[in-house]
């Protein structure tokens, strides 16, 4: 039994395909734990990047450079009093944040972090992903309705309308990417893993195929996913000046933190869809152009070296921190964190580990790029008015994305015909 358990490590399929239940459980725990850690990190990262863009320092006190701030926040939220409005619909009020978090986490079932690093491979992967993540609207509307408050109701109506209307543009952009997969031998596919594989077969990330069609599709998807996850500049449901906190007005403490968790998780989920569809998923840069054993080894060293470099950066900032007694603990913490990162880097340099984990590294760094984009856009752009938001959704993004579908189809057909004629 242990033999068959370990046998999986030598295979190159997802645990879902291999049908090994223990590994599925391990992967689920790994993915959900990793996503939660990602949310914690993202909380810190967003505050830090936003602060620096606004020429501030951001959290500095809890832990070195505020590294423990999200943990302190989470502790504070957990020990807060659990309030529920008296006239609220108790059951729905309780279920709304659960629904948001559940849908957000569920969509990670099909996300391929690597060829073998997905919980399972569905043949309708993208469809499942979009379907489940749009179920989150239900949670938002339930929250607004159950709170029995005007602010909440208005906020949830707004975000419901927003999420639904941007869904269409988003799906059309996805369709154009899915159509590109049919260019490869073997025909089109909706499976997340096969989409990445067809990018490998066609020797191009879909962002750059049919230039500039793929790029525009990615841009449309990026804008739509910002609106879909209710983030700035489309964060109308949370417009503080008008609606207090939108559908989250009556929520506090742990329930509120569930909404927070759901929001960041769904951000990561849609970012990973964008990564899979347009940025070649887990593929390292130039998998075909710079192929061969030497290049493979060189690229597989990058994850470990990146972590080592980050650790070195921590040590550098440790030497620069003041040695006063009241910052002693913080600077020691910085050095400890640097040592931890360097250790991780060393582990990642081990040959068996690096061959198995480098896919995940590339995938996560591409998702991180999108997460940075979220924060960047949030700091830069002012919030849109509701009618402007709807205008962008229906009058700009939707026509563009439908046009993209048509153009992709035309170019694809033309290429197929050419191929026939030339043969």
């Amino acid at each position, binding site marked *: 039994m242990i033999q068959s358990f370990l046998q999986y490590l030598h295979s190159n399929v997802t645990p879902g395909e291999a049908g090994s239940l223990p590994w599925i459980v391990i992967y689920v725990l790994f993915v959900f734990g990793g996503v939660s850690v990602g949310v914690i990190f993202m909380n810190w990262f967003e505050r830090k990047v936003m602060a*620096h863009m606004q020429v501030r320092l951001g959290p500095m006190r809890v832990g070195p450079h505020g590294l423990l701030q999200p943990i302190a926040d989470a502790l504070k939220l957990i020990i807060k009093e659990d309030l529920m409005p008296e006239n609220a619909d108790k059951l729905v009020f309780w279920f709304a944040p659960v629904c948001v978090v559940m849908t957000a986490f569920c969509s990670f079932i099909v996300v391929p972090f690597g060829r073998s690093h997905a919980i399972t491979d569905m043949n309708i992967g993208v469809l499942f992903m979009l379907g489940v993540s749009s179920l989150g609207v239900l949670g938002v509307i339930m929250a607004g309705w159950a709170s029995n408050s005007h602010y909440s109701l208005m906020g949830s109506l707004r975000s419901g309308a927003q999420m639904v209307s941007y869904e269409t543009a988003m799906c059309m952009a996805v369709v154009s990417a899915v159509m590109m997969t049919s260019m490869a031998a073997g025909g089109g596919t909706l499976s997340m893993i096969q989409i990445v594989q067809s990018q490998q077969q066609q020797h191009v990330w879909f962002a750059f195929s049919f230039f500039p069609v793929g790029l525009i599709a990615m841009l449309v998807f990026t804008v739509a996913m910002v609106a879909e996850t209710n983030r700035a500049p489309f964060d109308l449901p949370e417009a503080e000046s008008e609606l207090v906190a939108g559908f989250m007005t009556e929520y506090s403490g742990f329930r509120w933190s569930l909404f927070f968790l759901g929001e960041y998780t769904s951000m990561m989920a849609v970012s990973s869809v964008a990564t899979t569809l347009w940025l070649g998923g887990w593929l390292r840069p130039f998998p075909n152009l710079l192929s061969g054993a030497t290049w493979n080894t060189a690229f597989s060293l990058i994850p470990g070296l990146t972590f080592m470099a980050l650790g070195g950066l921590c040590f550098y900032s440790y030497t620069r921190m003041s040695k006063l007694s*009241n910052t002693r603990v913080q600077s020691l913490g910085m050095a400890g964190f640097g040592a931890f990162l360097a250790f991780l880097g060393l582990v990642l340099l081990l040959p068996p580990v690096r061959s198995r984990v480098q896919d995940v590294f590339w995938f996560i760094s591409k998702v991180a790029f999108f997460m940075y984009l979220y924060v*960047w856009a949030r700091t*830069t752009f002012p919030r849109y008015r509701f009618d402007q938001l709807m205008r962008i959704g229906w009058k700009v993004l939707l026509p563009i994305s439908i046009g993209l579908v048509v153009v992709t189809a035309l170019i694809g057909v033309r290429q197929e015909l050419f191929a026939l004629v030339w043969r």
Partner: protein
Amino acid sequence: MSAVELLKKIFLVDLIKGLSITFRHQHPKDLVTEQYPLQRPEVADRFRGHPQLKKDENGKTLCTACGACALACPEKLIKVGSIRDPETKKKVLTDFDFDMGRCMFCGLCEEACPSDCLDLTPGYELALYTREGAELNREQLENGIPKKVYER
């Protein structure tokens, strides 16, 4: 709408400009935040803060008890108490009251002082627990308010 403007709109030039500005400002050298208790602001020498009565090298006050500061003060918050020394026939300072709660730190008293005794120092941490704490007497003005040092 001219062609250039249309192209600008299509290629989102304004948005990209905004993004580039925020991106450039991430550089740590732009930071203006001051970590206050650890890192104190440097104030100018002529900053008008906490008042002080200066003494000469022998520890004797420089004040001649002329009362020019009390006259110059627009708020009438300085009270100079003095007696005339029968031997030297000079005024000698007995007490000096300065109600910092009403002070607006205009610096007219400092300018009026003929012996450069009254001075508004760069001390800026003037927070107090009581209103009465702002009424400074001669002792406090000459030696400064004893600071309570807290352990962490």
